[in-house]
């Protein structure tokens, strides 16, 4: 009754427009979960007895209670524990079916759709170049510690994404490729790795909050940036501060959706704090949907931060960016930088990076 057709071509996976669409998508999926799980058609008792049978089966009522067709009823047992009074978990079967019907079925299309959109975007638009090219004069953007925090989070996220996708989609996609034996080995390894690195992701997320939150507070001018699509709508440059609206939105999406993934993951990996099966099922669904959203949008981030925009990757490699790049994308910060006079010449930058000044080995690409 709540069938949703996810039209991947309508989901814009550009980093700058992602958050609103992604959050709406996530909320929609959560609604879908509850609607689907709640749609319990009450058991219909067949009152049409075949001719010749004059007595109702005396065991029918008993087995209806046992089967718990109407709702998950708690019984009374001598064993005291979470869900120990539930003989058959009605929701479990429904959850398993939902998992097969929705995330396993649609996640590959979502992710492949994002990749396709990025490939098409690059084919049509190409790399976003700096007008006039890069000057070679560099400005410090990120410290060593900030880059370490970013790359720890990124690498751990990539590992969790790969192992998580193996666990989610492995049965459908990998068993036909590798066979059951090799897949079971891969799945076992992925499960252990995924469980171990999950808490590391949470710690790196907290480090990310501490390092970058202050500069990602929304400020005046950010809404204009959003309305102009980051410069894709209309002509001319769009004003931006140290972080533009797109970067800020991506940051808060990582933090908030990442926290959602981490908390639901912690509930799943530590099932000894009184959470019953239903909480585990809901946590699992939230975990899966949030993870798919974050993986999908992160593909856009990886694209924009590497081959999509000239001069961007250098920020996270050396911590320095070209002043032309700053003027093109973060003009408000460029003014502050020029006033402070903290611009290195090409020769100074090359010397600092341990290269000979004037060497042809460019730092910016």
């Amino acid at each position: 009754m709540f069938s949703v057709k996810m039209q991947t071509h309508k989901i814009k996976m550009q980093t700058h427009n992602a958050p609103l669409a992604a959050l709406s998508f996530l909320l929609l999926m959560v609604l879908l979960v509850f609607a689907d799980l709640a749609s319990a058609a009450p058991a219909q008792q067949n009152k049409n007895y075949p001719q010749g049978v004059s007595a109702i089966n005396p065991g029918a009522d008993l087995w209806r209670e046992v089967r718990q067709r109407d709702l998950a009823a708690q019984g009374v047992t001598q064993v005291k524990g979470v869900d120990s009074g539930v003989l058959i978990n009605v929701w479990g079967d429904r959850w398993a079916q939902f998992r097969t019907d929705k995330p396993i079925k649609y996640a590959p299309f979502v992710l492949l759709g994002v990749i396709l959109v990025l490939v098409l975007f690059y084919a049509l638009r190409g790399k976003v170049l700096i007008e006039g090219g890069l000057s070679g004069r560099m400005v410090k953007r990120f410290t060593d510690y900030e880059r370490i925090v970013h790359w720890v989070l990124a690498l751990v996220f990539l590992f969790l994404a790969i192992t998580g996708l193996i666990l989610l989609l492995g049965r459908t996609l990998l068993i036909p490729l590798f066979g059951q034996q090799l897949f079971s080995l891969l799945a076992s390894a992925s499960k252990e790795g995924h469980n171990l690195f999950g808490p590391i992701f949470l710690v790196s997320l907290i480090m990310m909050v501490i390092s970058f939150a202050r500069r990602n507070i929304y400020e005046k001018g950010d809404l204009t940036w959003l309305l102009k699509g980051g410069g894709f709508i209309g002509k001319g440059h769009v004003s931006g501060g140290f972080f533009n609206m797109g970067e800020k939105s991506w940051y808060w999406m990582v933090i908030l959706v990442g926290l959602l993934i981490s908390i639901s993951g912690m509930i799943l990996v530590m099932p000894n704090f009184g959470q019953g099966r239903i909480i585990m099922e809901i946590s699992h669904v939230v975990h899966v949907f949030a993870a798919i959203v974050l993986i999908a949008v992160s593909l856009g981030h990886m694209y924009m931060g590497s081959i999509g925009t000239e001069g961007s990757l250098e920020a996270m490699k050396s911590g320095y960016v070209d002043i032309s790049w700053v003027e093109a994308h973060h003009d408000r910060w460029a003014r502050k930088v020029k006033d402070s006079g903290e611009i290195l010449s090409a020769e100074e930058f090359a010397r600092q990076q341990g290269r000979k000044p004037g060497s042809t080995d460019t730092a910016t690409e």
Partner: protein
Amino acid sequence: MIEYLIDGPLWYFSLAVFCIGVVWQLARILFTAGKTDLSVARGSASSGAWRNIFSRFVPHHEIAPQVRVQVVAGYMFHLGLFAVIFFAAPHVIFLEENLLGFGWTPMPHWAFIVASQFAFFGLLILWLRRMLNSVSRLISTLDDHIAAILTFVVMLTGCLALLKGFTELRLLHRFTVELLLIYFPFSCLMHTFTFIPSRAFTGAWFGRRGIDA
């Protein structure tokens, strides 16, 4: 066949290379004849040595702010790895059955998980710092990177084999351990055994001259 090789000949070969290699390297360092110090001793070399061994566990206050990341991540990694190697239940059982003939109480499973997470996190931060800091990157050699990556791979394969349900994963972990044992004596990983003599030598050299190193 592969199982026999990894659990048998390759294990003994790697162990032999490790033991002989470490002893040979240490002997080479300790028995290298140095110049006799003819100056008048102004202080005690031995007390200088002992003092330096322990004082270097904490960075000097003048450079402490600059080395905060390396110190914290370094302790996380080394303490986590030590706990995992010597107090994780599978390792305690392995050491008892294959090497020592006796064992000890391993740490609980949750502590093993926490220790391994500390070790992974610390190593990741240390290696990334080496790559991202321009000075560290320039003075790093291939040996430094191989040591870090090989150690990470050994830890990762061990983590992947935690369930103990697949012989292949256990063999992969054991194989990477054997590679590490063979590589160990010829690499910077020898700092495991040389850091004590190194600190002692520096402390003694300065201590004899009446200087607190």
